[in-house]
């Protein structure tokens, strides 16, 4: 599961960058910006979930 997670984020990143190019080429720069933000939010939602799991694990381990 681990490497898939990395590849999933990379895929989203590449998709967002392609959409960015297409939108900015056709003159819709603000929509390109919105696409980047949307991609970032999606990726962050996935990463934040992983981070909270990890922090609970660390909290249990180190007794923080």
């Amino acid at each position, binding site marked *: 599961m*681990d*490497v898939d*997670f*990395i*590849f999933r*984020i*990379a895929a*989203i*990143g*590449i998709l*967002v*960058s392609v959409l*960015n190019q297409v939108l900015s080429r056709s003159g819709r720069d603000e929509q390109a910006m919105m696409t*980047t933000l949307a*991609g*970032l939010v999606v*990726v*962050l939602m*996935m*990463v934040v979930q*992983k*981070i909270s*799991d*990890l922090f609970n*694990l*660390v909290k249990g*381990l*180190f*007794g*923080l």
Partner: protein
Amino acid sequence: MDIFKLSALAVIAALCALVLRKRVPELAMALTLAAGVLLLGEAVDALASVRGLADSLARTAGLSPRVWRPVWKTVGIGVIAKLASAVCKDAGEGGVAAFLETAGAALALLAALPLVEAVFNTLSSLL
């Protein structure tokens, strides 16, 4: 998970981050963050068994958990603060990283306070 798989994961993540770096820098940092979280997850699993052994050793040595727990807490604070500041430096925010390291040091000192107190009590009871 052995070290080969972890290093392979790290190298792949670095490569993917490089691909994203030029076009969408924010996602590149999110990707390095995700890779770091995965690697740290494996390290924490390994550390859990070390923690079990350390606790049993401390119990047989007669050390009260009150003395032993601050040590673990300080180690935890140190590890998390160092990793988080490294990620901040990666994103180019050296200032934020420095602030975080200072705060981490202060919190580690706070966590070590009861340890000093416990040692002082045992010393005074000996004298």
